[in-house]
């Protein structure tokens, strides 16, 4: 990922995350975020138009309740189902994606967002996120997250 793209991606993500979840993002080297023993949940979505590609966000599965609670203005213990957690993570990605595209292309961008999908991250997928330049790592309130952007040329 080009440095300028990475900076824009991370800056936009951190801004949206703060507004949406009241959690603060900080870019860190991958080895600092490397937690292979944790289970991660990933939301992934594609977009088309003036900019086309895929945006992904993987967070530790045990933080999805906190993220959902912060978005919904509830306590984590009020988030009772995996469906609620996944839906909130998907919505977070959806909002980030719209902002990322407009930050890169401009407010007059023409684009369409597909519906995000969520799933657990397998060991192979985790290894790919660690190795691939398409992913950057941040700490979101001290929780390691992987943010991936793949643009179609």
């Amino acid at each position, binding site marked *: 990922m080009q440095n300028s793209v990475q900076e824009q991606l991370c800056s936009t993500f951190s801004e949206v995350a703060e507004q949406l979840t009241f959690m603060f993002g900080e870019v860190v080297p991958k080895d600092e975020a490397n937690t292979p023993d944790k289970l991660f949940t990933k939301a992934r979505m594609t977009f088309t138009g003036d900019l086309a590609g895929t945006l992904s966000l993987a967070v530790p599965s045990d933080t999805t309740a906190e993220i959902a609670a912060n*978005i919904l*203005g509830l306590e984590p213990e009020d988030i009772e189902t995996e469906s*609620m957690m996944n839906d909130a993570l998907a*919505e977070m990605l959806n909002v980030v994606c*719209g*902002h990322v595209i407009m930050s890169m292309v401009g407010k007059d961008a023409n684009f369409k*967002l*597909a*519906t995000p999908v969520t799933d657990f991250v397998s060991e192979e997928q985790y290894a790919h996120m660690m190795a691939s330049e398409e992913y950057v790592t941040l700490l979101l309130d001290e929780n390691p997250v992987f943010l991936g952007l793949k643009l179609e040329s």
Partner: protein
Amino acid sequence: MAFNILLVDDSATVRAVISKALTLAGVDINELHQAGHGQEALDVLDDQWIDLIFCDISMPVMDGEEFVKVMNEKGMIETIPVVIVSSAGSEPRVARLRQLGVRDYVQKPFTPERIREVVDQVMGVIQDAE
């Protein structure tokens, strides 16, 4: 005055957030209806009296733009205000939607204050004196 409001978004999270924002903003709600996409919203409109609609753009089955077009074709958009709530609202898209009759656009993420501002402007409610 209490309103019958329809929330149209494929995300249950968003519908919950808008619902909470309306409450925090002090908007008087009589009935709150929900739909997961434009077609479901049209089904609600067939059965229920709705005063105001908050609608997303990116949804499966029938997205927000298509929903607004149908409301426009049926002449409903003149009498039932639609406010778009989205992160996919680029300027050309918002302009297209306003031409179809959408009253306002709220970008996600939003605050309860922004929701109150929109409701007051769109529904022509005079704010309570503090």
